[in-house]
């Protein structure tokens, strides 16, 4: 089951910390992280790739964007 993490409105490094925590929890092979700024988007993608995951999709929405990452 896919996990969704809402990191909107939070400043760095919290979006990355939440992403890493979700990855470590091992609960899912697919996680969607909601962020609302470019810096968090870049940092979350960089952290996911660093952990050996792939960025499967980045979906722009009115109040931010959803980054879907998948376990490789």
């Amino acid at each position, binding site marked *: 089951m896919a996990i969704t993490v809402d990191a*909107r*409105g*939070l*400043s*760095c*490094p*919290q979006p*990355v*910390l*939440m992403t*890493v*925590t*979700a990855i470590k*929890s091992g609960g899912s092979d697919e996680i969607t992280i909601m962020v*609302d*700024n*470019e*810096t968090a988007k*870049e*940092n979350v993608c*960089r*952290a996911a790739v*660093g952990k050996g995951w792939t960025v499967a999709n980045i979906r722009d929405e009115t*109040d931010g964007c959803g980054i879907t990452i998948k376990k490789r």
Partner: protein
Amino acid sequence: MEGFKNFFAGRWGIISVGIIIGVLAPLLQKLGNPGNMGVCVACFVRDITGAVGLHRADVVQYARPEIIGFVIGSLIAAFMFKEFRPRLGSAPVVRFVLGAFAMIGALVFLGCPWRAALRLAGGDGTAIFGMLGLIFGIWLGTLFLKNGYSLGRAQQTHFTAGLMLPIFMAGLLFLTLVYPQVSGQAKNEMLFYSLKGPGSMHASLIVSLGVGLLIGFLAQRSRFCTMGAIRDFVLFRQMHLLSGFIALIVTALVFNFLVGQFHPGFQGQPVAHTMHIWNFAGMMLSGLAFCLAGGCPGRQLFLAGEGDGDAAIFVLGMVFGAAFSHNFGLASTPKGVGPFGIQAVVVGLLVCLFIGFTMRKRIA
């Protein structure tokens, strides 16, 4: 435009920004800025505080155009790349307090992380203790982050709210242009200008402003942050921001060496003292405060330029801290710490620990 945007977010982007700052900062020193102070965000915000008379230390009063450029340059980049996002409301008063104590700590050491790097690159051995203190303070901050420390979410706000600090800086630039320094006078109708000391040493307005704008622009694109550099390495073993910070130090070192600005030693370094414990402790306080606030002083200026009202509050906190430091003897001088510098560091650490321990919530 997209390729340009992606370039600065990448590894070589951040390294090239570090190299560019590593050239420009010592160049500003060559062109008139104080020793090992080509760029110092804390010192320069303090100088601005003095220029508008909020403190009366007559050796550190000058409306530094670099700082104005940092904010406006970031604003320009944010508008160009559609990243201007007015936001506010993540514990602003706590950010104000953190800004004040970050400044107080920096003025005990005599420099922010930017200047700690430039002091190292100029051969100032006393900066080693400051740099170690910075790393230790940031490490302390990461312990809080790991345990759920959070200042909470920011909200989207009015366009105008995001413009407050850029407007303040534009106003300061206007005053500087309308009320330029009168030779030999410490004050014109509006602004204070140091006649001696570090505040009297500066590159020309146009050069300082131009360099500030360029650095502001590049730093907004690359998210350059000296605190984040160390924090991300400690937290995630991530080298991204750190590679930019190291590039800055190495480039500045080489540049200083080539132009004869490298003077290795511990004694008699420009605008520095040799009370090593307090060099360490001052920067430890700063590092902790920056970490709890999510960015080094430069990054706070760049964030304020892209509409982050909480970062703007942090900057105003730094102004408050600078005024306090110089009005009440907290700031160090080349002779050593000020009469109340040690007490201020202890109080600052207690306040930061209180904030760190109490502002927690489950983030997972």
